[in-house]
């Protein structure tokens, strides 16, 4: 590989993506981070206010509740999604009639725009027009406020997120499974390794990168949940079901506190980067240990 890795070859391969990425992601983040230190209101000239916006957010109970909701959604969806979608990928890898069609169908929720996902679930979770309340009512069960209340809403959002992401994570695992060296698997099953043992000691370790990819993407996607909440409850009642991004949207565009909104956006970026990259570093540390 060494003689294929001359400096200019590396540059040609890496430069286009690095340039586009820096210009369209990194530069805008720095630009907006600058605004987060001002009192910019969308119009007029921004005045420098130092860390005021960040301090105000620290004193804002709605910020903390939106962080809490985001964490609830993160934990609930990771716990369900990672093992669930891996299991589903294993299941769908087996050969049976209609298997290909099932793989396509499981992916269906992923291709639906998040706004549409929200709209669909309104008709299932709404306390008045939703399917669930109808079913629970018909069965004589209590009809909890799935959305709109201040207890269940984040869990309901997590449920909807899980629904919309299962096919996504499953596809990553499925692609990973396709790349597994078949000879190792065959050898191990000829050695008489039982299904579970093979799964735990051979398949899962070989799928390390798939797990890392799926987890990192799910983490960062949870930190970006917006449209779901926007359509389902719009953050209500009084911001109790807000996620970090939906609350940022509210501050920035509803309240037109552009500076504060960008401060929150910076916090979201840092949190998402720390959690996801931290996870990747942790994995790497364990690997080299």
């Amino acid at each position, binding site marked *: 590989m060494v003689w294929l890795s001359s400096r200019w070859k590396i540059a040609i391969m890496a430069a286009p993506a690095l340039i586009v990425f820096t210009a369209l992601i990194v530069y805008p983040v720095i630009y907006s981070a600058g605004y987060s230190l001002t009192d910019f209101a969308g119009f007029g000239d921004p005045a420098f206010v130092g860390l005021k916006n960040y301090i105000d957010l620290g004193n804002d109970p709605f910020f903390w509740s939106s962080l809490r909701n985001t964490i609830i959604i993160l934990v609930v969806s990771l716990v369900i999604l990672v093992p669930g979608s891996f299991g589903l990928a294993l299941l769908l890898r087996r050969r049976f009639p209609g298997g290909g069609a099932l793989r396509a169908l499981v992916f269906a929720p992923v291709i639906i725009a998040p706004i549409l996902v929200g709209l669909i679930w309104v008709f299932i979770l709404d306390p008045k027009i939703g399917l669930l309340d109808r079913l629970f009512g018909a069965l004589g069960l209590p009809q909890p406020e799935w959305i709109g209340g201040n207890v269940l809403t984040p869990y309901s959002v997590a449920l909807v997120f899980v629904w919309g992401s299962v096919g996504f994570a499953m596809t*990553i695992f499925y692609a990973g499974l396709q790349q597994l060296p078949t000879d190792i698997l065959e050898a191990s099953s000829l050695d008489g390794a039982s299904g579970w043992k093979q799964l735990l000691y051979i398949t899962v370790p070989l799928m390390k990168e798939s797990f890392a990819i799926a987890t990192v993407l799910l983490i960062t996607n949870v930190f970006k949940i917006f449209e779901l909440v926007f359509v389902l409850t719009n953050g209500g009642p009084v911001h109790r079901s807000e996620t970090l991004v939906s609350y940022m949207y509210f501050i920035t565009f509803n309240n037109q506190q552009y500076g504060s909104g960008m401060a929150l956006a910076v916090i979201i970026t840092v949190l998402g980067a720390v959690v996801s990259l931290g996870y990747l570093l942790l994995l790497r540390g364990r690997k080299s240990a």
Partner: protein
Amino acid sequence: MSAPTSPLGRRSRRRTGGIVAAIAAYLITFLILLPILWIVLLSFQSSEKILSNPLDLGSLSLLNYVHTVTSLPLAQMYGNTILLAVVSVTIGTAISFMVSFALTRMIFRRRRVQSGLRFYILAGLAVPVYILLFPVYRLDLALGVFGSYAALIIPYVGVSIPFNTLLLTGFLRDLPTEIEEAAIIDGAGLTRLIWSVVLPVMRPVIATVLIFNVVYVFNEFPFASILINNPDMTTVSLAVSQFQGQYSVDYGGMMAAATLVLLPQLVIYAIFQKQVIAGMTMGAVKG
């Protein structure tokens, strides 16, 4: 139960296991599809029925579709979105693959730079799109592309890079390097190595990346909402974003519109699934 070592017993156990797995797979898929089926059912009901008795199968009608088909510029929406998707996904995937290859396969003089660059790009995954809107808008104006498709294509390419890089570097790392080494010993240059050795093996992953990117472009809303100001350039997600306002309490119409947007997307995916994934997976297995 027969002893697990007997070949016959083993086969029959495997078969029952297969049947159980198939039933489980069908059941889970059905559960996942249930919300969509619910929407399709509602799309055939009048708004009053949706509120009073949506399960009444006697009152289904096509009326919602008659109203919706005429008011929804389906062909235009899909045409615009497909154009955006094809161009941005092609560029995004190509340059992401190039950088991913450099970051996993090529030898940097300083390894720290290599892993540092990877993390630099991956950090982009954590960036919420709303932080980018205004600066990107300015960038579009500065480049003189505002109001054109390029105004959207450029950020779509940018946003796809961290995601693609995560997937591609991840799978490239898992890929055994023996074949490549053999090819290099055979005297393959960099490009032949990529075209004839690495890419064929990477097909399933590339297919996955392509699909996810297309899905992203189809569903992307924040950029589209501020970078498109011409109704003729409306995209699928922009049209969908207006459903709540447009149909407000015409629930039946809203559900019919939702179904009409969903179906072509499902069909496009089904074509992808069959042609691309199936073909590429086979290629991978054979290769």
